[in-house]
């Protein structure tokens, strides 16, 4: 337990190892999202123009950065704000600005999602701006985001998550980590009928199976991310 006074002062960036984990520039190497094998693109093309009561889009290959720190540490909170131009959201809230979003996960944990190509730049900004005891962890390879929209999504969610997704309890801009079928997800609502699920890579296939199964009575249409 190092001295409390020193603690706020050490230079975070010098105490941890962060590295750019994306391919060297102009290598042309593309990553594979966790759902690549499901070949959502082909399905999306095949059903282009169709309207589903549940529309699914994978927001693949984004930058996912976990932030840990205490709200009582201004070196952390202000550092994040400097790096992202966004203040950390309150409990169960999500904020978003110019393709950068922050999801509240826990009193000392947030998930920052950024465009894939900017992920290291933003990670570096965070690493360099925050001070004191905190953590900035790149988890981009470990998760993906599914966007669900349509008139039956709320019903689909009622089949899948135990918590209340009614607008009175789950307004736009809320985010929770919860049970999703037999795995877990970070669930947020971006509009009346649009939701996002952050899921873990290794469970992605299971979630995909579950979604297809649950949507059997609805009309599920895959949409490309663009």
């Amino acid at each position, binding site marked *: 337990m190092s001295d409390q006074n020193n603690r706020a002062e050490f230079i975070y960036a010098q105490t941890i190892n962060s590295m750019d984990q994306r391919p060297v520039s102009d290598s042309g190497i593309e990553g594979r999202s966790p759902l690549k094998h499901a070949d959502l693109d082909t399905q999306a093309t095949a059903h282009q123009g169709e309207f589903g009561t549940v529309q699914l889009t994978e927001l693949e290959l984004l930058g996912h950065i976990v932030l840990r720190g205490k709200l009582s540490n201004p070196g952390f909170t202000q550092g994040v704000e400097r790096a992202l131009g966004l203040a950390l959201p309150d*409990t*169960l809230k999500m904020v978003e600005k110019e393709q950068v979003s922050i999801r509240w*996960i*826990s*009193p000392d*944990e947030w998930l920052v999602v950024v465009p894939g190509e900017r992920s290291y730049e933003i990670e570096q900004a965070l690493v360099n701006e925050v001070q004191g005891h905190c953590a900035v962890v790149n988890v981009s390879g470990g998760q993906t985001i599914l966007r669900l929209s349509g008139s039956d999504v709320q019903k689909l969610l009622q089949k899948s998550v*135990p*918590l209340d997704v009614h607008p009175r309890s789950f307004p736009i801009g809320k985010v*929770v*980590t*919860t*049970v999703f079928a037999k795995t*877990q997800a970070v669930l947020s609502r971006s509009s009346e009928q649009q939701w996002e699920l952050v899921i873990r890579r290794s469970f992605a296939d299971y979630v995909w199976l579950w979604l297809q199964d649950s949507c059997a009575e609805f009309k599920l249409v895959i949409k490309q991310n663009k």
Partner: protein
Amino acid sequence: MFYIYCPHCEEHREEEEFHAAGEAHIPRPLDPDQCTDQEWGEYLFFRNNPRGIHHELWVHAIGCRKFFNMTRDTQNYEIKEVYKIGQQPKITGASEAAAAKEGV
């Protein structure tokens, strides 16, 4: 099935998101090496396991991943309060008994 207020998420969630993690307020002995086998055994295994008011540790496992304490009646399963690690319960077996006596 319990409906549990997470003091960190500040709302009620379904029990499926939580795990019970045993009796609360069992601090690890500060100097284990000085403990006798009996003392260490008591710390490891022996529990109050009360019928009635019980303080226990829960973790919001599929949620904020934070541990917290709960005071619960093990007979009727009523949750009396939740409170954060490091805090002390307001409701105890003794306080309930006193309240019952006063007819509150």
